[in-house]
C-alpha cells in the first residue's frame, strides 16, 4: 500500500516542470518555432497548472491560469499571431505565474492588483481587453452538472408531488457510446412512485435481431418532488443519443411568497421540453447532434500507435534523502577501504599477489559505485540555465537595455547541490553582465553593434571539472575607471602598478561597484565579492577576462561533485593535510639557488625562469614560523585560476587518494586557506587546503570567521 503522498507537494513539483516547459515553449516560439506541438505544449502546461490549482482551491492561481490559457487557446487556434509584443506579454505572464506558484507554495499570495495588471496587460496585447474582474472565471462545481450533488436545501420544504411523464428511446449510438439504459432508468425512478411501460413494438422478427441496435423504448410516469431540470439532468450524458420527451404538471414556483399567476401553465397542459429529432427542439435541452462534425473538431488520428522503443526511457522518482544516504554510506565505504588498505599494508601478509589484486579490485569497484551514485545526483544544468532567461528579461527591462540570453551546453550534468547553490551567484553574474556589461541600445547603435546585446551562458566539462562562462558582447571593463575607483576607495595605493589582470581582479574586492548610478537590480549591496565567496564555498573559482569594446567573460570552474575529490595527502609542521589534485601543476625538490627573498619575509621561487610566490604551508596556516632558506624539503606548484601559479612548501608527500569531503561549516565555521576536511584511513581528520585562498592569508591573517555558521 502506497501511503497518501501529499498531493500538494506533487502539484508543486509538477508545476515547476510545467513552468519550465511553458517558458521553454514560449522561447521556442519566439525564435520562430511554428509547430503546432509547441503551442499545444505551452497551452497544456498552463492548462495542467490550472487543473491542479483548482484541485487545491487556489483561486487566484486558477483565475490567472484560466485567462492566460484563454489567450494561449486563441494563439493555438490561429486567431492570434505570435508577434514579438504578444510573446513578451506571454513570457511576462509566465514569469508571474511562476511567482504565484512560488507564493502559494510558501503559503502566501502575490499582490492581487499585480496579478490583475499582468493578465490585463496580456489580454490587452491579445486584443481581448475589457475582461472585468466580475467575469473572472469561476469553477463550475460538479454539483451543477448532475443531479446527485443538487443543493437539496434549495427545494421547498412543503412537498408537492407532481405527475411527470417521460418517454425515452435510446438510439443505437447510445450503446456505442457506452450508455446503459438500465442505469438511466434506475436513476430516473429513484425512490419515487413510478409506472413504467415498455414499448417493444420495434423488436424485429426472430432472426433479424442485431444486439448493437436499439429496439426498446420506455414511458415512465413519476409521482415526484423533483424538478424538470433535475429529471432532465439525468439524461444529459445521453442527450443527442436518444429521443426524450417530458410532460409534466407545473412545478412549484421558485418563490413561494410570490403570487401564483392564474395565467401560468395550467396543471393539465402538457409542456413539451424535449422532443424527438423530427421536431425542432426548444432551447434548454439537446440540440440533436449533426451528423457532420465540424472540421475543427476532427481529432488527431488514433492510428499512430507508437512502437515501445520510441517512448522516453522509463525513470523513477526517488526521494533525495535516500540518495544522500547512499552518498553518506559511500563516503564511509571509501574511508573504510582506505583503512583496510592501510591495515593490510602494515600486516605481515602484505605483498601477496592475491591480496594485492583484491585490494585493487575493491578500489576500482568503490570508484565505480561512486561514479554511479554521483551520476544519480547529477542533473543537467538546463533548468538552472532556463531560469536565467527571466533574469535577462527583467534586468534588461529595468536597465532600459535590450538583451538576449543564448545558452550552450545545457545538457552538461552537475551535482544537484552544486546546481542549487549556483543559482544565486549565477543570477548575480547575469544581472551584472546586463547592468554593467552591455551598453544602452542607443550607444550600441552608435558604435555599429546590433542594439540587442547578447549574454552567452555556457557549460562544459573540462578535465574533471565543470566550467561555466557568462560572456557579454558589451563594452568590456573600463580599466582606468576601475583603477580610479579602487584608488578612491583606498583599495589600492595611488601609485600601484597594476597589470590588466590585476585591475580586473579588483572587481572581486568586497564592496567594489563600478556602477556610477546604482541600478534597480544590482544595487542590492551584493558585489562580485559575494559571487566569488559563494563559488569558493562550492570548491570553485571565478575568473574574469575582458576585451575593451568587445565584452567581458566571467568563468566559473567547479568540481563535479561536492562529496569526493582526488587529493594529495601531505605533511606540514607535523599535520597531515590534503591538496586537491586538480590544482597541482608539478612537484619538485628545489635547490637553494632557486629561492629568493623579497622584502623581509616574502620569498619567491624561480621555476624555469618564472618567479612564483613561495608559501610555507605550515607557516601560512599558523602551525610554525616560516622556514629559513634551505629548510624546505618539497615544493608543490599549484594553480590558482587566473591569479597564476604559486609554490607551496611542504615537509613530505604521503600519497594520492580519493578523499570524502566533510564540511567544517556545520560545527565550526569557515577557515581562511581551508576548503573542507576529510577523514583519513586511520580515522583521523585531515584538512583540505584551498591553495587559491592560501596566498591571500599572509603572515598575520585576520581573525577567522569561526562559530558563525549557525547565525
Amino acid at each position, binding site marked *: 500500500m502506497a501511503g497518501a503522498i501529499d498531493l500538494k507537494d506533487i502539484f508543486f513539483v509538477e508545476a515547476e516542470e510545467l513552468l519550465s516547459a511553458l517558458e521553454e515553449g514560449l522561447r521556442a516560439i519566439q525564435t520562430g518555432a511554428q509547430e503546432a506541438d509547441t503551442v499545444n505544449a505551452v497551452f497544456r502546461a498552463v492548462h495542467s497548472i490550472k487543473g491542479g490549482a483548482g484541485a487545491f482551491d487556489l483561486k487566484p492561481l486558477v483565475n490567472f491560469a484560466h485567462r492566460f490559457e484563454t489567450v494561449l487557446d486563441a494563439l493555438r487556434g490561429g486567431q492570434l499571431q505570435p508577434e514579438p509584443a504578444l510573446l513578451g506579454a506571454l513570457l511576462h505572464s509566465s514569469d508571474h505565474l511562476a511567482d504565484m506558484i512560488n507564493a502559494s507554495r510558501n503559503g502566501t499570495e502575490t499582490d492581487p492588483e499585480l496579478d490583475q495588471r499582468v493578465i490585463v496587460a496580456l489580454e490587452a496585447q491579445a486584443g481581448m481587453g475589457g475582461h472585468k474582474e466580475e467575469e473572472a472565471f469561476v469553477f463550475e462545481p460538479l454539483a451543477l452538472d448532475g443531479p446527485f450533488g443538487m443543493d437539496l436545501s434549495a427545494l421547498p420544504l412543503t412537498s408537492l408531488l407532481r405527475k411527470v411523464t417521460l418517454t425515452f428511446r435510446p438510439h443505437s449510438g447510445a450503446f456505442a457510446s457506452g450508455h446503459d439504459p438500465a442505469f438511466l432508468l434506475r436513476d430516473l425512478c429513484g425512490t419515487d412512485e413510478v409506472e413504467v411501460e415498455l414499448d417493444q413494438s420495434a423488436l424485429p422478427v426472430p432472426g433479424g435481431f442485431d444486439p448493437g441496435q436499439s429496439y426498446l423504448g420506455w414511458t415512465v410516469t413519476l409521482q415526484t418532488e423533483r424538478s424538470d431540470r433535475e429529471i432532465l439532468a439525468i439524461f444529459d450524458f445521453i442527450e443527442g443519443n436518444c429521443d426524450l420527451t417530458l410532460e409534466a404538471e407545473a412545478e412549484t414556483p421558485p418563490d413561494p411568497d410570490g403570487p401564483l399567476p392564474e395565467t401560468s401553465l395550467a396543471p393539465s397542459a402538457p409542456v413539451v421540453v424535449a422532443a424527438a429529432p423530427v421536431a425542432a427542439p426548444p432551447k434548454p435541452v439537446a440540440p440533436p447532434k449533426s451528423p457532420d462534425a465540424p472540421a475543427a473538431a476532427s481529432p488527431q488520428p488514433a492510428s499512430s500507435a507508437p512502437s515501445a522503443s520510441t517512448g522516453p526511457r522509463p525513470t523513477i522518482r526517488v526521494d533525495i534523502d535516500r540518495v544522500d544516504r547512499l552518498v*553518506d554510506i559511500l*563516503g*564511509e565505504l571509501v*574511508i573504510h577501504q582506505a583503512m583496510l588498505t592501510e591495515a593490510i599494508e602494515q600486516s605481515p601478509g602484505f605483498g601477496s599477489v592475491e591480496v594485492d589484486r583484491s585490494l585493487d579490485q575493491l578500489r576500482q569497484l568503490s570508484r565505480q559505485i561512486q561514479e554511479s551514485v554521483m551520476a544519480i545526483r547529477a542533473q543537467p544544468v538546463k533548468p538552472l540555465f532556463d531560469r536565467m532567461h527571466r533574469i535577462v528579461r527583467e534586468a534588461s527591462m529595468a536597465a532600459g537595455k535590450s538583451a538576449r540570453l543564448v545558452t550552450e551546453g545545457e545538457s552538461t550534468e552537475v551535482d544537484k547541490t552544486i546546481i542549487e547553490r549556483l543559482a544565486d551567484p549565477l543570477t548575480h553574474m547575469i544581472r551584472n553582465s546586463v547592468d554593467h556589461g552591455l551598453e544602452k541600445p542607443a550607444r550600441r547603435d552608435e558604435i555599429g553593434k546590433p542594439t540587442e546585446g547578447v549574454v552567452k551562458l555556457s557549460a562544459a566539462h573540462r578535465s574533471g571539472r565543470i566550467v561555466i562562462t557568462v560572456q557579454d558582447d558589451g563594452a568590456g571593463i573600463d580599466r582606468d575607471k576601475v583603477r580610479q575607483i579602487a584608488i578612491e576607495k583606498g583599495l589600492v595605493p595611488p601609485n600601484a602598478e597594476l597589470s590588466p589582470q590585476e585591475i580586473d581582479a579588483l572587481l572581486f574586492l568586497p564592496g567594489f561597484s563600478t556602477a556610477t548610478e546604482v541600478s534597480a537590480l544590482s544595487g542590492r549591496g551584493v558585489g562580485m565579492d559575494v559571487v566569488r565567496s559563494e563559488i569558493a564555498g562550492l570548491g570553485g573559482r571565478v575568473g574574469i577576462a575582458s576585451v575593451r569594446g568587445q565584452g567581458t567573460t566571467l568563468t566559473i570552474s567547479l568540481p563535479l561533485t561536492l562529496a569526493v575529490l582526488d587529493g594529495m595527502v601531505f605533511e606540514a609542521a607535523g*599535520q*597531515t593535510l590534503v591538496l586537491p589534485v586538480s590544482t597541482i601543476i608539478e612537484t619538485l625538490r628545489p635547490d637553494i639557488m632557486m629561492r629568493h627573498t623579497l622584502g623581509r619575509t616574502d620569498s619567491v621561487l624561480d621555476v624555469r625562469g618564472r618567479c612564483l610566490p613561495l608559501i610555507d604551508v605550515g607557516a*601560512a*596556516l*599558523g*602551525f610554525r614560523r616560516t622556514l629559513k632558506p634551505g629548510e624546505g624539503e618539497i615544493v608543490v606548484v599549484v594553480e590558482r585560476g587566473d591569479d597564476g601559479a604559486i609554490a607551496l612548501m611542504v615537509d613530505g608527500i604521503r600519497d594520492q587518494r580519493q578523499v570524502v569531503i*566533510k*564540511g*567544517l561549516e*556545520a*560545527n*565550526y*565555521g569557515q*577557515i*581562511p*586557506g*581551508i576548503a573542507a*576536511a576529510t*577523514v583519513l584511513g586511520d*580515522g*583521523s*581528520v*585531515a*584538512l583540505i587546503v584551498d591553495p587559491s585562498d592560501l596566498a591571500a592569508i599572509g603572515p598575520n*591573517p585576520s*581573525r*577567522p*570567521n*569561526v*562559530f*558563525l*555558521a*549557525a*547565525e
Partner: protein
Amino acid sequence: MRSSGFATDPDIRELVAFRTAGQDFCIDILSVREIRGWSRPALLPHAPSYVQGVINLRGAVVPILDLARRLGLEPIEDKDRNVIIVAAIQNRTVGLLVEAVTDILGVPASGIQPTPDLASEATRSMLRGVVVQDSRLIRLLDVAQLLPPADDAAA
C-alpha cells in the same frame, strides 16, 4: 547515557558533573550527546587558543574546546587521560575537553542557586548558577556562552 531513575519528576533536572582545572562543573544532560576518550585532533589554522582542533566523530568533523582554557583557567596537561564530552550547542556539535566526568546529578530547580557576585565577570557570563552538593560547589555552565558571540568573531 540517560539514567531512567531520575527522569520521572519533571521538576528534577539531570546534570552531568565533571572536573577540570581543579574545579567542579556541570551541564544539562539534555545537551550531552556522548562522552568519549581523548583522540588527537587535527589542528585548525588561526583558531582561538582554546580550540584544540577537530576530530572525526562517526563521520562528522567536530571541534574540540579545552573547557578550562575557555574559562580562563589552567589548560589541561595530560590529555591522554582526559575525556571529551560531546555536546550539542545551538545546532552544532562540539567536544568539550575536561579532566574527568564525576557524577550524574538529579537536582530540583530550587537546588540551583544564582552565581555568587564574587566570580569574575568573564566566568559569571558563562555560568547559569551553582549547585551545592556534598559540600562541593558545582558550577552550572551556560553552554551557549561557550561559543564566542557572533559579532565578536566577525570583527
